[in-house]
């Protein structure tokens, strides 16, 4: 009987091994064969991945809308003018499910299997950082509006370009405005600061911006509390208790929307109040206003990369807002949409200026690019001394008790004057 069993085992093992070999061989045959020269093709193929499912799916969806608007506009005008010929642009978009390895693998697929000409970036720092390595290895120009951490651009890469200003600048811009208030005597000198930051690249950069400013201020600012917290944390009461005990003047936090709502809820419950309150890029979101109540989020500052309010001062912004509303049934765009759109526009400009789809030529043009933009400052460029990351200033908004959130800084685009210290605290 054991003889029979043995042959059965041999057969099943052999079957298994040959099956494996077949499957593996089969997996190899899946690549497409096309190797047509890109200059002969009618369309310019641009590839991108976005987190359409997973933790960042909401923002991923916004970026998709921004990209699609940019592509539709160019194609409606007949396409890009490349070396005298008009060529349409086509977007190949995959879902990277907010996973770094997937973003990297899909970029590999886009470059080596789908043979796209250029890449647009995904969203969220970690994904952009993971994905950009493969773009650099394959010498593929990669323009993104989703990776803000400055260390992405400090690796000496030549093919990666970012329209998103570093989050450090957000901290610096906030401190600039606070400094103005302090110089005008509205805030005490020295002011004690509590910095609470989510333990992500975003939060780390925010903290760096604040602490660098404080260190260079010559004693005008003192960081009394510097604590990180986990993303999607549940309970901040112990941390807020620590803040309460430290009696600080300025409360500067950096959090994603759910943490902002949870933390601010607990902040209010603990009876806390500070002269200046900020949650980094959060503050004016409708979801938060609804969840917490207009009065409770009044005077909260937020720093953003772009706001639809800029339509009043920057004509390109106005054009964008109108086009967006027309395409997406009256919805008002937010900074996510704007940055995705600008990233695509920057890439298009690079291609047009190069007059061809040769990667090296386009890369050179992108490195030297300076085009008009709807971002604060009016232009966008990719300075080499910052590794190819744009350095546009942020704009600061402040929630008003009536539910609006006007821009208060910089002065050129401000719609209202900021208020400090927060009137909520004066009993």
């Amino acid at each position, binding site marked *: 009987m054991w003889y029979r069993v043995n042959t059965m085992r041999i057969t099943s093992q052999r079957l*298994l091994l040959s099956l494996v070999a077949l499957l593996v061989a089969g997996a*190899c045959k899946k690549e497409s064969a096309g190797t047509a020269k890109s200059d002969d093709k009618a369309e310019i193929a641009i590839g991108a991945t976005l987190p359409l499912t997973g933790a960042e799916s909401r923002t991923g969806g916004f970026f998709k809308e921004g990209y699609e608007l940019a592509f539709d506009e160019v194609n409606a005008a007949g396409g890009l003018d490349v070396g005298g010929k008009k060529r349409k642009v086509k977007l190949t978009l995959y879902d990277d499910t907010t996973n770094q390895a997937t973003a990297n*693998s899909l970029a590999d697929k886009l470059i080596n299997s789908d043979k796209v000409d250029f890449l647009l970036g995904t969203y969220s720092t970690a994904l952009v950082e993971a994905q950009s390595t493969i773009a650099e290895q394959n010498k593929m120009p990669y323009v993104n509006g989703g990776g803000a951490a400055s*260390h992405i651009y400090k690796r000496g890469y030549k093919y990666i370009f970012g329209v998103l200003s570093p989050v450090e600048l957000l901290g610096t811009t906030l401190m600039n405005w606070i400094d103005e208030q302090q110089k005008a005597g509205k805030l005490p000198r020295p002011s004690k600061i509590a910095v609470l930051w989510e333990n992500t690249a975003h939060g780390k950069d925010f903290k760096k911006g604040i602490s660098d400013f404080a260190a260079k201020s010559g004693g005008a600012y003192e960081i009394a509390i510097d604590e990180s917290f986990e993303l999607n944390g549940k309970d901040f009461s112990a941390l807020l208790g620590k803040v309460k005990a430290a009696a600080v003047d300025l409360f500067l936090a950096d959090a994603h929307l759910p943490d902002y709502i949870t933390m601010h809820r607990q902040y209010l419950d603990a009876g806390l109040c500070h002269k200046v309150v900020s949650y980094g890029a959060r503050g004016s979101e409708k979801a938060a206003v609804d969840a917490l109540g207009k009065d409770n989020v009044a005077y909260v500052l937020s720093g953003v990369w772009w706001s639809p309010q800029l339509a009043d001062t920057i004509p390109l912004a106005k054009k964008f807002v109108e086009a967006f509303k027309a395409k997406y049934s009256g919805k008002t765009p937010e900074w996510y949409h704007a940055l995705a759109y600008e990233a695509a526009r920057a890439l298009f400009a690079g291609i047009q200026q190069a007059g061809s789809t040769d990667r090296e030529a386009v890369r050179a043009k992108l490195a030297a690019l300076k085009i008009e933009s709807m971002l604060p400052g009016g232009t966008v460029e990719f300075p080499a001394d910052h590794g190819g990351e744009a350095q546009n200033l942020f704009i600061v908004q402040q929630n008003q008790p009536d539910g609006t959130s006007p821009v208060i800084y910089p002065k050129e685009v401000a719609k209202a004057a900021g208020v400090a210290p927060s009137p909520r605290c004066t009993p």
Partner: protein
Amino acid sequence: MTVNPPSLVSRRRGGGFAAVCAVLAVLPWVADLSAYAHNQLTLLYITIAGVLAWNWMGGFVGQVSFGHAAMFGIGGFVAGQMMVHVHLPAPLCWLAGAGVAGVFALGAHPMLRLRGPYFSIATIGLGEASRLVFTYWEKFTGGASGLSLPIDADVRFRLYWWALAIAALVAAASYVIRHSSLGLKLLAIKADVEAAADVGISATFYQDLVFVLSGAVVGLTGGLNASFFNFIEPNDMFGFERSITMVLVAVIGGLGTSLGPVLGAVVFVLVHNYLLSSYPQLHLGLYGVLLILIILFEPLGLTGLAQRGVRAVERARARKRAAP
């Protein structure tokens, strides 16, 4: 008269295995693989090695670990840090990562006294605690910013053969362990710890041994992973999802079988890529359903199904022979 016991690996099977490895080794040239396929296969080999090693603990000994990502992450970051600061050739860095991961696994010794679900829950705790601590430990992992490695296209290209060699070694080791006396001892521990102790098998020693080996190999794959992606980040490397993937692949392939994880990895990667392009919003549920079906109807996963298929074929053949 000397009696030669049958060798551990029959000549036929050993030959077949070597043939498959040879085919895979020359595949990139013979099939003119695109860079994408080349890279996907490299990832496949890394996954195979990791899951096979996981299976030593989860399948052979029967202690299902949901926290192997801890060793994976440690191996990856040790290797990464060495490549950035010490500039040793990559294979040495990987080995160093494996070593440190093994030592870490040794440190988890007190947990090995636990049985069944208690052990599994403890590993979840270990995995998550590691993730939080290592994300906080910026000097070692770079914190939330992660660690970027210098790009070396040469290493990345040759990674295919390194990963293939390692996967082949681990597969051979899995087979040999399973069919040797060590495998029998592990099976005994899996079936009944106390009875095994009664016949002189020290559960503590063998469990430690397997956990350390399993952890070291998984740490090695972490190093390979770092070289492959050139960027590693603690929340991702130490994440619960990584541990879960190892469990899923092993169960799909066949928990406790010697080579089931290989099949599981192949199917998992194929299904994963297919789902990503066609139904990305269903991949979680599909794995869940697969897991449920396997546990309820075929605990040995795809290997079990393959064996059933082979048995059916044999029965049909026997019937034909018996009825002329």
